[in-house]
């Protein structure tokens, strides 16, 4: 496919490698009494993330949208005795989300150029660490490798929130960490359980999701997971529930969402952007990549539940967003609503819904990211996020108001902007699946318009009542550059979504096909009796 | 007689256990533990008689050795504690909460 077979590995590991290199150099410098200037850290960090971005675009270019199988696959034994391999590959879904990640990272680094002043070295280190974690999560095709990246990314995120966040940062960081851990550890148990099932059926230890090209080793997607007539922990429902819990917390679905407003509000701008932009997507990605294909029957079983939760999320998120006085919290709750759409789309289990869902994830990443950046810029100037403190910002900051307006419109889902395409596809899929659900979901779109526009009006329009707002300076060059970089995809997706959809289409279809095949699987493929248990 | 001896050892062991758990005077607690060890020895001797196997008695010898070593160390600890705290009451001696 490409000249560089390990391009994907370079993409994933480049940020971490840079971080480690910086750390080593710093350690060496410290030991002889010196120190690496923090600007070097920042520069190299930005450089690394830009390089990653460039490499990712090479992936983008090299990706063949006509093929359905994984591309850029690399499969290297890592811990063979446990069936853990370095197994990465891309399909359209991963490609989009990786692209989003690689794109947001330099943007965020530039955006936080002035915000982060103390412990800059640590900040750069954790950002790069985080980038590797995120990229690795989206590319992993070995379940344990996925788990490793999934958890690994938590650590830098916790530090980003906890060290550089707002006044209640520690509470928010711990809450974020604990919520995520609950789900992921249960997922680990389920993961081990399915690996055992696999081992009993095939006699091989393997955590690979699918068999890599050129190999005959059966992988987890070949495993028969019973629906009934088995110990409870071997049934699809329970295993799916364990996976779903982890992903639902991350998404987040409504009863499990409480960590999100806190984390978003307390995190520094960059953290919020990455949380909203990338981390939340991992939940959705996890459903699509692992939970649905592995346990299709259970997934179907659970559809009503998830529809319900998604609808509740949409409505609840919107309603709560409406009463927020803190802009950042408002956006955070709007994320809950948006991600409700994403979940909804996913569980329609049809092509439109799934495509819309993935696209909406990207959209949300960009628009909400942009919103957080904008709020951050405001915060840098006023050191408050209370809506009531603002009003009439349009006068001192016209450029800001304009861009803010575009982004708000995108978030609402105005046609020709990116939000529209995603939401439209999702609603399409939903109506196909269940008209009632679709109707209620549409209500959510309206609500989104209400709270977003209301918020925009209160901040941007009206007279400048607060004297402090009078002297506000409009966006500087760096800030403009950042925002413009974000506006490009907003318009691109809105105007020409085909660029993205054509890459998504085969992958989504393949996912649905796999689900169908596995639903029809009714017995273990190789009737091998379980090994005699050696008991003491 | 073996059976009776084992019963006796069980009774002594129970008494010792209760003493170690209930009493609060460190020295009495240590003595109760000694009593438990004695009950062990009695059981071992009885069983060694039962099986006509001197191995049990070798074990008793080792228990005696250990009892001696434990007494030396345990009372040394009591003395060093007493120097600093002037109490033998386990509950009074509680800078550290249980």
């Amino acid at each position, binding site marked *: 496919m490409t000249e560089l077979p390990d391009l994907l590995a370079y993409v994933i590991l480049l940020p971490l490698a840079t971080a480690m290199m910086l750390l080593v150099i710093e*350690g060496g410098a*410290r030991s002889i009494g010196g120190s690496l200037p923090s600007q070097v850290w920042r520069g190299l960090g930005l450089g690394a993330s830009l390089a990653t971005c460039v490499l990712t675009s090479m992936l983008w270019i090299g990706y063949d949208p006509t093929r359905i199988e994984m591309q850029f696959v690399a499969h290297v034994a890592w*811990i*063979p*005795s*446990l069936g853990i391999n370095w197994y990465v590959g891309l399909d359209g879904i991963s490609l989009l989300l990786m692209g989003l990640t690689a794109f947001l990272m330099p943007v965020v680094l530039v955006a936080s150029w002035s915000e982060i002043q103390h*412990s800059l070295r*640590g900040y750069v280190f954790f950002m790069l660490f985080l980038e590797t974690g995120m990229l690795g999560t989206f590319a992993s095709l070995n379940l*344990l490798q996925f788990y*490793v990246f*999934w958890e*690994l990314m938590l650590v830098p995120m*916790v530090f980003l929130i*906890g*060290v550089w966040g707002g006044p209640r940062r*520690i509470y928010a*960081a*711990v809450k974020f*960490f604990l919520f995520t*851990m609950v789900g992921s*550890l249960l997922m*680990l*148990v389920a993961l*081990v359980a399915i690996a*055992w099932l696999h081992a009993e059926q095939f006699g091989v230890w393997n955590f690979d999701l699918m068999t890599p090209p050129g190999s005959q080793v059966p992988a987890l997607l070949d495993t028969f997971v019973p629906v009934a007539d088995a110990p409870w*922990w071997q049934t699809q429902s329970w295993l799916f529930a364990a996976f779903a819990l982890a992903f639902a917390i991350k998404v987040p679905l409504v009863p499990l969402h409480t960590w999100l407003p806190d984390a978003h509000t307390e995190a520094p701008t960059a953290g919020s952007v990455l949380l909203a932009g990338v981390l939340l997507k991992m939940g959705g990605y996890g459903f699509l990549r692992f939970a649905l294909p592995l346990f299709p029957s259970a997934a179907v079983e659970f559809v009503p539940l998830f529809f319900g939760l998604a609808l509740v999320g949409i409505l609840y998120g919107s309603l709560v967003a409406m009463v927020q006085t803190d802009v950042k919290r408002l956006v955070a709750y709007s994320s809950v609503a948006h991600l409700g759409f994403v979940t909804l789309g996913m569980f329609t289990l049809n092509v439109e819904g799934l495509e819309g869902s993935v696209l909406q994830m990207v959209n949300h990443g960009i628009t909400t990211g942009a919103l957080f950046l904008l709020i951050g810029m405001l915060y840098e100037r006023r050191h408050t996020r209370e809506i009531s403190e603002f009003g009439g910002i349009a006068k001192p900051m016209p450029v800001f108001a304009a861009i803010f307006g575009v982004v708000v419109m995108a978030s609402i889902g105005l046609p020709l902007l990116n939000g529209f395409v995603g939401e439209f596809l999702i609603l399409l899929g939903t109506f196909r699946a269940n008209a009632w659900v679709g109707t209620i979901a549409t209500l959510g779109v309206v609500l989104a318009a209400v709270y977003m526009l209301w918020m925009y009006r209160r901040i941007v329009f009206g007279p400048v009542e607060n004297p402090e707002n009078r002297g506000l300076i409009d966006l500087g060059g760096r800030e403009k550059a950042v925002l413009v970089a974000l506006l490009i995809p907003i318009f691109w997706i809105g105007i020409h979504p085909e660029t993205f959809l054509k890459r998504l289409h085969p992958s989504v279809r393949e996912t649905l096909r796999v689900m169908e095949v596995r639903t029809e699987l009714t017995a273990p493929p190789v009737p091998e009796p379980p090994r005699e*248990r*050696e008991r003491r | 007689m073996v059976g009776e001896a*084992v019963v006796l050892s069980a009774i002594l062991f129970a008494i010792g256990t209760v003493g*170690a758990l209930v009493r609060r005077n*460190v020295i009495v607690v*240590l003595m109760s*533990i000694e009593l*438990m*060890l004695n*009950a*062990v020895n009695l*059981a071992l001797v*009885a*069983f060694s008689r039962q*099986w006509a*196997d001197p*191995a049990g008695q*070798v*074990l008793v010898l*080792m228990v005696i050795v*250990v009892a001696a070593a*434990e007494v030396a*160390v345990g009372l*040394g*600890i009591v003395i060093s*504690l007493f*120097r*600093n*705290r002037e109490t033998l009451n386990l509950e009074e*001696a509680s*800078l*550290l*909460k*249980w």
Partner: protein
Amino acid sequence: MIPIPTLHVVAILPVLVLAMGAFAVLSGELFLSSRGAGKSGAGSVLVGVSGATLLTVVVITVQGFISAEASEFNPDHPMLHLDRLAYFSSSLVVGAALLSCLLANGYLQELRIHHGEFYALLLLSTAGMVLLVCAVDFLSVFLGIELMSIPLYVLAGFDRGKPRSNESALKYFIAGSFATALLLYGMALVYGATGATHFATIAARLDPNDSMAMVGVGLILVGFAFKVSSVPFHQWTPDVYEGAPTAVTAFMAVTVKLAAFAALLRILDQAFGAVEALGSVLAVLAGFSMCVGNLMAIIQDNVKRMLAWSAIAQAGYLLVPLSAGTAEARAAVLFYLVVYALGNLGAFAVMIALTHRGQEADRFDDYNGLATQRPGLAAAMVLFMISLAGIPGTAGFMGKLQIFLAAVRADQLPLAILMALTSVISVYYYLRLPIAMYMRPHSERPHRRELDFLEFVVLATCAALVLLLGLLPNTLDWLPVIDWTYQAATASAPN
């Protein structure tokens, strides 16, 4: 004429070397301390001697593990059986002892209790542990436990000017000797039921329906539960850990647990294999330990106490595979022991490195803002904490993964789920130190003390191994730890 037994000294070489080392240290202490001046120099010599001794023993046991030749001291009447399990556990125990021994140098000097006896007792205790992990006879189990414990009681009270240290020693002593009495009574009852003290014979004669024998087995289990501080036999742990000098806490928290678990592993496997009910008993103990340990650890405000409760919880994790009893479960136990040792030793090493002018850094507040003052130490602490919490990329994750694998395989899934959930709780308190170090403002406490070279060695070793075992536990040709644990776990009994 009495038949003179044939003795194979090679089988007790580790113990012998350790004893010799202890003698050398003790005579060194006598000889050097009479000189009066040059006391600190004397200390370094003694650290060197004991370090060299422990290193030698590690080399011997590792060599034994590689050669995989089982040996017995007295083949006609084996009390020790050195197979791969024994070699593996011994090298683990002695390795951990080596690391904690290196930690003592700087620490004891800061506390002004740098006496040579410390090293002598440490070596003797280690000798006891080696005996314990090689034991295949109740007699040697008992002697091993005692030789391990008695020096430890003393070490816990080593800082005898401090009431806390005295109390720690006293509590440890009472709990320990009480446990020994229970253990012994159990041994006596099992001996009464089977007429044997040798594991293999017991296994052959043990009748699971014999109530007396079962009481004995239960009491033995309780005795070990005390040693590994499993709930409900854990009450002594936090106090003892907190009160003892940190270097001692490091030593006993790690090595005792290693040795006791390794011995328990062997006893359950080779002597009580017939007792099916043990699995569920152990499972119950595991469940309680995990819950209580993790919950109690949350409310501590002292780092040592927190680590003590966490050690109780970790004992619970270790009991999970132990209750499963399969070969892979035994391997998981051994692997997790390595993980446990590294994480705890590392954490204690950081605490020790921060001890300054007789003041220990054992409260969470002492760590506030440490990251800016001692970035290296803080980073190391974070690494050890996330390893103990079981975050991927560290050894702790691999350990938990292995336990999950074993538990799920052995139909212990509820236990695995409980372990997962309680691990989440543990994350909360493990995170407290990183939070204090990175996210809170500086405390008044001066953290400055030159890092002792030996402390650096320990920290670096632990950190490197935590990462290596977390990322490449079985990949490197020279460090296939998982393979080793399997080889050790499947080493079979002699007869």
